[in-house]
């Protein structure tokens, strides 16, 4: 692993292509994320694609480089706050007089608008939690070897 990681760093083509690809991967992740409320897509897929961009960076360069971009604390924060955004929408709709996760009450004038807003927020929470969890799994497994 260590050996191949070093070889990877020397390979110019891989590095250049990865560097060019990563922005598009992240952009595609965002596209899938925001496409999710009226078409195929959504937080789960988007989260994985978004995390894949960072994982590619970590593989081509190194785990330390990736950790400079996304520190472990941020990953942990992402997992927790993603779930909290999701639950927060539920609690907010509860406080506004609806049932738990009843988005229709989020907008007092237009139920459809509330539904729209609720789904976007929930998917945002899901996307954040999923991409952070994926990164956390990557960190946990990739960092293991170096700790030894």
């Amino acid at each position, binding site marked *: 692993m260590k050996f191949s990681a070093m070889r990877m760093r020397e390979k110019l083509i891989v590095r250049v292509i990865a560097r060019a690809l990563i922005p598009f991967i992240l952009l595609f992740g965002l596209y899938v994320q925001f496409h999710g409320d009226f078409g195929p897509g959504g937080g789960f897929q988007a989260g994985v694609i978004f995390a894949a961009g960072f994982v590619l960076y970590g593989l081509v360069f190194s785990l330390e480089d990736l950790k400079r971009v996304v520190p472990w604390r941020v990953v942990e924060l992402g997992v927790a706050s993603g779930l909290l955004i999701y639950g927060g929408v539920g609690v907010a709709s509860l406080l506004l007089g609806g049932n*738990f996760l009843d988005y229709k009450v989020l907008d007092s004038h237009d139920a459809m608008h509330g539904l729209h807003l609720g789904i976007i927020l929930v998917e945002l929470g899901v996307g954040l939690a999923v991409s952070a969890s994926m990164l956390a799994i990557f960190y946990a497994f990739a960092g293991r070897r170096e700790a030894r």
Partner: protein
Amino acid sequence: MTEHLPALQTALPLLAAPVCVLLRRAALVRVFAVLVTWSCLAIALSLLQEVLGHGEISYALGGWVAPLGIEYRVDILNAYVLVLVATIASVVIAFPLAGRELRIPKERFFLFYALFLLCLAGLLGITITGDLFNIFVFLEISSLSAYALIGLGRDRRALTAGFSYLVMGTIGGTFILIGIGLVYQMTGTLNIVDLSQRLPPVLGTRTVWMAFAFLVVGTSIKLAAFPLHQWLPNAYTYGPSVVASFLSATATKVAYYVLVRLLFTVFGFAFVFERVQLSALLLPLSLIAMVVGSLAAIYQTNIKRLLAYSSIAQIGYMTLGLSLANLDGLTGGLVHLFNHGLIKGGLFLVVACALSRVESPRIESLRGLGKRMPWTMAAFVVGGLGLIGIPGTVGFVSKWYLVLGALDQGLYFVAFMVLASSLLAVVYVWRVIEVMYFSDEERAPERDDAPLSMLLPTWVLIGATIYFGLDTELTAGVAEQAAAYLLGGAS
């Protein structure tokens, strides 16, 4: 706000888990987790009171009305199970964590509390939801956190125990998923109440029989019913005692609840006990579990493993009550669900207390502890008496109903076996007591009992086994109502 209690019951611990990760400081997280769990208990108690007073509660999650949306449905049966789960969780979470039993250092204890709350949310979710697929999701949430909690044990064998629990549990969960799929294929619905109305016309088809088989086997794995119990002894032996206490008192009990719900509400009494004749299989297996579990417990040298094998025997009692399928038998099974939860939760906490003073959970290392830790060991004696079923303890109440149920069916042999396996329980409990109190030690050991913060939770559970042995209003009364409701709703 009170009408939202069903949603808060699961949402509260589920959302508290990430907050634990954000708070990080062990002392802070502990106070927070205790508060959350206690409010869960308050919610569960008020739900039970509400159900007893005003009948069933139905809550449409997200405002989508059942059968389209996910419905949380609280009736007397699951309100009763909710109270058990929340009670055990409230006591266990107040128990101080011992670093010597855990693999993680103190500054990462917050992860333990996060896992614990996730597991609690899953268990409460399984119990409260009225949607079959939702049961699967919550089952996996609770199981996944349970595997991780078991793997936190200090002994390296905890890892292999956690892994084989993961493999067995996932097979069980996937079997349940197949069963749900087959049922959905035949009826097009996942709502339990809706299913109970739509299944009867298609009950004769082979698909539904397959679904039944997959669902029963899947839940039996999670329940650790007799031939499918292989994961349990190692998991409880090598996992931290606190975790063993929590899981033995809740996880298998909730699986038992799922089984009862499937048999009586979803498939219905007539199908399960008259067409499939499940009793013909379940009754002998329960009897074997009672005897084999107790016999295996007698030969153990590790006290945690002894308790784990005793759990298998006690699960045999619960499934026995189920297979009798009459009012007294089912009441016995449901009462034992609560009672065994209290006893086994209490006994594992006793072990946790003991392990704060002695190095190893081997029975020999408990030598002379009766004098050294009088309060802890007295708790073991009282809990052990409950396990045997001495009159005045909760164990007696459940066995009383089971014997009544067996006699009601004319099954004298079964009634005899219940009493005979109690004698086996006398043997394995006595083995421990003998070592603790009646081993000749040259020098009288100094009194060095577990701290009050440990003794208090232990005695709450152990004291409850005496209290509910004398005052059976809350347990047996509610269980009898639940059993009558299940049998009445089924026929």
